[in-house]
């Protein structure tokens, strides 16, 4: 099989070849991008994080800085989430996606560390998660989530955390590929 083509036609036939090369590139990039960390597409309703950002602008590295408690956010009666056996007023975390969590959720009584290392109460074995990645500290007005200077960030909905943020019932947040949901019953 030999193509007998004029030079002019051959000259233009190089474009399909280049096009194929770039289709390959685009497809390969798409396949690879799917595995990168970034804003997670959470199965969540809107969580407008901006309005609840706490007044401390210090990004979490100074982990021991006490978080000032702002004026309580009015409203937001607790919704009826979680198993009905729960004690009212109890706080817990549900693992929504990315990891197998305990069936009855993670109780939230003491501060919780999220990270890749073994000394974290919530250990996430994922190379995109930093050793000590994020911390959730319970408080009377609701728990405060802060990023501990992680490389790939802690995400509240679509927003990357820049300072400590107070969670409300039903908020989704993500550490690496794992999505959590905060519940208050």
């Amino acid at each position, binding site marked *: *099989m*030999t*193509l*007998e*083509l004029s*030079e002019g036609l*051959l*000259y233009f*036939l*190089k*474009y*399909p*070849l*280049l096009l*194929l*090369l*770039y*289709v*390959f*590139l685009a*497809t*390969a*990039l*798409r*396949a*690879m991008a*799917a*595995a990168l960390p970034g804003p997670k*597409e959470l199965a969540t309703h809107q969580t407008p994080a901006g309005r609840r950002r706490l007044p401390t602008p210090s990004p979490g590295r100074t982990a021991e800085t006490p978080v000032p408690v702002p004026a309580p956010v009015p409203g937001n009666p607790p919704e009826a989430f979680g198993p009905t056996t729960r004690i009212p007023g109890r706080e817990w975390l549900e693992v929504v996606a990315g990891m197998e969590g305990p069936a009855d959720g993670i109780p939230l009584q003491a501060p919780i560390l999220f990270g890749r290392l073994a000394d974290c109460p919530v250990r996430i*074995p*994922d*190379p*995109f998660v930093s050793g000590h990645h994020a911390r959730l500290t319970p408080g009377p007005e609701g728990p405060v989530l802060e990023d501990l200077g992680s490389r790939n960030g802690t995400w509240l909905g679509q927003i990357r955390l820049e300072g400590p943020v107070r969670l409300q019932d039903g908020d989704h947040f993500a550490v690496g590929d794992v999505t959590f949901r905060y519940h208050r019953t």
Partner: protein
Amino acid sequence: MSRRPSAFLLMALVSAILVLGAALAQAGLSRLDPPSPWPSVGLLLGAFWAGWLLSHLRRPAGDSMLLPLSTLLCSVGWLEVYRLGPAIGSPALGERQAWWIALGVLVFILSLFVPGDYRALEDYKYSCLLTGVFLQLAVMLFGTEINGARLWFEFGPVLFQPVEVVKILLVVFLAAFLRQFRHWIRLSLLSPEGRLPRKALLLLGLGWACAEGVLVLQKDLGMALLLFGLFLSMFFLSTGRRDLVALSAVLAGVGSWVCYHLFGHVRVRVGAWLDPFADPQGQGYQMSQALYALASGGLDGSGLGMGRPFLVPEAYTDFIFVALAEEWGMLGAVGVLMVYMMLVTRAFRIALWAGDEFGTLLAAGLATLVAWQTLILVGGTVQLAPMTGITLPFMSYGGSSMLANFLLLGILWRISAVGEVSGGD
């Protein structure tokens, strides 16, 4: 989220590029009466798909992007080699290259069928080092001299370039050695009272001396650059010390300067790099022809078989990137560079996901190896660095290089297949 494109689709695209390219190259060369490309294309397609099928059957958890990326580079490289064959008077070049690629895929498959675990390599680190040093010394003393450099062994009709094997042996040795002594080096670096980290400096000095030795004794700038770059990258990866790397880079600069003034062959190479048009018919001939070829390629190239890349000496090995840039244009050349980038990114990702420290260092070392080799060679052909005699991974004509690179791919696949969390799709 949209479904992730599969490796199958990518392999199909590679096949389409190969078939369309072969038809175009044959038509473009019709004046030279080229041999039919179709037996070779059939061989390549068979090898690619057999490799894809067997690798997924044998170790399904492996990184499924490795094979599409490398076979694309092989295909594009083969198209240029096939196209150059009739023009430089050896029409069988394409067929021979197809056989080398098929053998490379065979090596890849065999490396997947070796029983056991890649971690076993760690126990052979000193064997690797000794074999590497032995091969390197042997080729210095008994190698066949071609174009003023002793880089090859001649076995009948086949030329064997030990550098290609030595580089992989070196990565295995460095990964195992640095994993074992990483903390020891770190402790030495942390020594109090501002004492000099003598042991670490000794190691760095040793690596530097080896690279300079290769440069002086073997007259091989590319190999010296590759070895030292590899050594520094892996030293940095395992210790994270930027100051020592900077210090070594300065040392390397000083060494190069001294070599430049002491040795004529280095001066000639650098001269041909800095000003090829000072002697366009002599020392600068290859480089100036390469620049003309790059310029005539332009943005979209001349089309396969329509350019004159055969005017550049060694266009099918060292200067294959220039041949590509002339006939596929800047668009094609940049596209191929992006494929190299993806391959290296992917190898680093395998390093990140590897279940153990040795795997991480090994995969990262192989990634830096491909990256350095591509950078040094492409830089040399587009006049960003002095030209050196190493091959472009997966594209240049040559058996040793093809087999070694597929072996590298096999090791990467093995690491990705046993990672703590599977990396493939």
